[in-house]
């Protein structure tokens, strides 16, 4: 039960180190990742493709227009929509392998031209948000855990408070205080690091609350372990015990949570992107959903899933670095 303290968040996938040589394990994990990516794309394709509503309506400018049957037929043929769905799927998959995401229904240009420039700003935003979140979370953990009832309680309270904050509200309040009132940071735009700080913070603060809750409880668990007592009995100071022993144990679950967090950050970046008028994948996705622009929706889903899967793979490797225990040989019967 102890790991379930975060509601749906806590069930973020557990990276379990698998037995075997490192190379073999990574190869096996990579194959599994490719499978998940393929399955995710396939699932999205069929779910979106088989929903009621004719894509042609979207292509021809929404429900208001009343195109002639000839125009409809021509568009159908142009976008390959006259083919059976299975053929469309296979064509899409084939094109995907060559890096071709198709043509946008709304903008009538290749999808990559639209979302290509959006990828980097979103990744920068998500990356910085993750760094901020970890810095805040670790600061809280190291400074407040087991430092007496008052500090401990205060740290705990702030973490729960942070984790309960909606990102969009944090964004708005940060904008009001630090951009509008104080003028320390730009209100909007995508102009270097300074313009990234507030959007990244608005995503980072709630996430920091979650990471800190997880690291706090594992830090507490670690500090209660007999090996901590052993280390102190060796003559180590409280601080060095925290840093050399407890911290390493404490960041393991946070690390696992981070893999999930990066994917989640990329998809919820949209909130910060809208508030701070930044370009980004999230905005493209929400616009595409509202306009029923299937190719863009699919492409963004693909990219987010790919980022998530890639980060998961990296975290898996990192996990092995922090926790070099291989599967214990033959557990006691």
């Amino acid at each position, binding site marked *: 039960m102890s790991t379930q*303290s975060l509601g749906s968040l806590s069930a973020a996938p557990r990276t379990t180190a698998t037995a075997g040589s490192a190379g073999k394990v990574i190869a096996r994990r990579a194959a599994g990742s490719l499978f998940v990516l393929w399955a995710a794309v396939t699932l999205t394709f069929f779910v979106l493709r088989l929903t009621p509503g004719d894509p042609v309506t979207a292509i021809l400018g929404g429900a208001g227009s009343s195109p002639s049957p000839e125009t409809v037929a021509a568009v159908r043929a142009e976008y390959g929509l006259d083919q059976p769905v299975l053929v469309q799927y296979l064509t899409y998959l084939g094109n995907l392998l060559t890096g071709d995401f198709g043509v946008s229904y709304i903008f009538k240009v290749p999808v990559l031209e639209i979302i290509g420039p959006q990828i980097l700003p979103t990744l920068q935003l998500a990356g910085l948000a993750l760094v901020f979140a970890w810095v805040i979370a670790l600061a809280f953990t190291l400074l407040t855990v087991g430092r007496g009832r008052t500090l401990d*309680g205060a740290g705990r309270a702030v973490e729960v408070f942070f984790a309960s904050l909606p990102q969009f509200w944090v964004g708005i309040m940060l904008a009001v205080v630090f951009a509008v009132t104080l003028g320390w940071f730009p209100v909007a735009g995508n102009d270097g690091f300074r313009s990234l700080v507030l959007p990244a913070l608005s995503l980072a603060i709630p996430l920091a609350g979650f990471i800190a809750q997880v690291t706090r409880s594992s830090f507490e668990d670690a500090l209660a372990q007999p090996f901590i007592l052993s280390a102190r009995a060796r003559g180590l100071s409280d601080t060095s015990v925290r840093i050399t022993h407890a911290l390493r144990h404490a960041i393991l679950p946070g690390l696992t949570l981070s893999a999930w967090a990066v994917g989640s950050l990329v998809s919820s970046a949209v909130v910060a992107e809208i508030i701070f008028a930044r370009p980004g994948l999230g905005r493209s996705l929400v616009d595409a959903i509202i306009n029923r622009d299937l190719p863009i929706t699919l492409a963004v889903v693909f990219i987010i899933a790919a980022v998530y899967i890639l980060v998961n793979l990296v975290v898996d490797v990192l996990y092995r670095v922090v926790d070099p225990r291989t599967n214990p040989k033959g557990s006691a019967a």
Partner: protein
Amino acid sequence: MSLTLDPATTPVDGSAASAPSTTRSRTSRLVRGTPIGVWIAAALLAFLVLAAVAPSVFLRQDPFEIDPANAFQSPDGVHLFGTDQNGRDVFSRVIAGTGQSLLLGLAATAIGLVLGGALGITAGVSGRWLDSAICRFVEILFAFPGLLLALIVIAVSGTGVVTAAIAVGVGSAPGYARMLRTQTLQVVAAPYVETALALGRSRSHILWHTIVPNVARPLFVLVTLGIGQAIVWASSLSFLGLGAQPPAAEWGAMLADGRNYLQVAWWIAAFPGIFITLAALTTTVVGHHLQRRLEAEV
């Protein structure tokens, strides 16, 4: 330093065992053992629930009445939270939105738990083949992190409040599935299940009378913890224009509305946000507390 050693919990064995816990001492322990923060959270949560069930208790103005002459009034005695661009009373609108927001959170959590529970419990009690099939499926769903799964649901079924509840529910289902599978596996492996078998119970009796009730034990806690996050998610969707639509008095939609007038009237966006936070915070604090109590019992 941090090593906690509570001698009072060290079991002292022998005929002179721990003091008998009568009902009264149990109640008084409950009162004393509950931190002040939890009491505050519970009181605030009770306030929110009351506002949701009987908004008229708090309503002082019609939340939908437009009064352009009174637009952008800053908070004062008459308009506790000020007025918005149409002169509507923000306090009344926030109160009026409580019901919808809480209901959205509850519905989304219920949907998520039912879907996740069906997957997770089935996987937990099934044989290797079905278990790994479900696990794979859930793993694929995890490749749509955060809002993504909810956004896909909206892409399929369009915008609206009902869709938002379903979207958030579906979005949280993979997490619940994984959690409940773990929970089920733990219960299945528990010695008391084996003891029931040794007593001669049939497998179906054990499934329905031992495994399922024990998996469901922390359900109330999960619901409490889940609602807060579901409210935040659902209001995010409304904020993006994908959930409740203006002029609905839904917190996320109100916030999106107020965002345009930040420089003239910060209160239009601020108060709905405070209430979203309040809802998430109070349910989380109360949920955590219930969870700790439950853990202490196991």
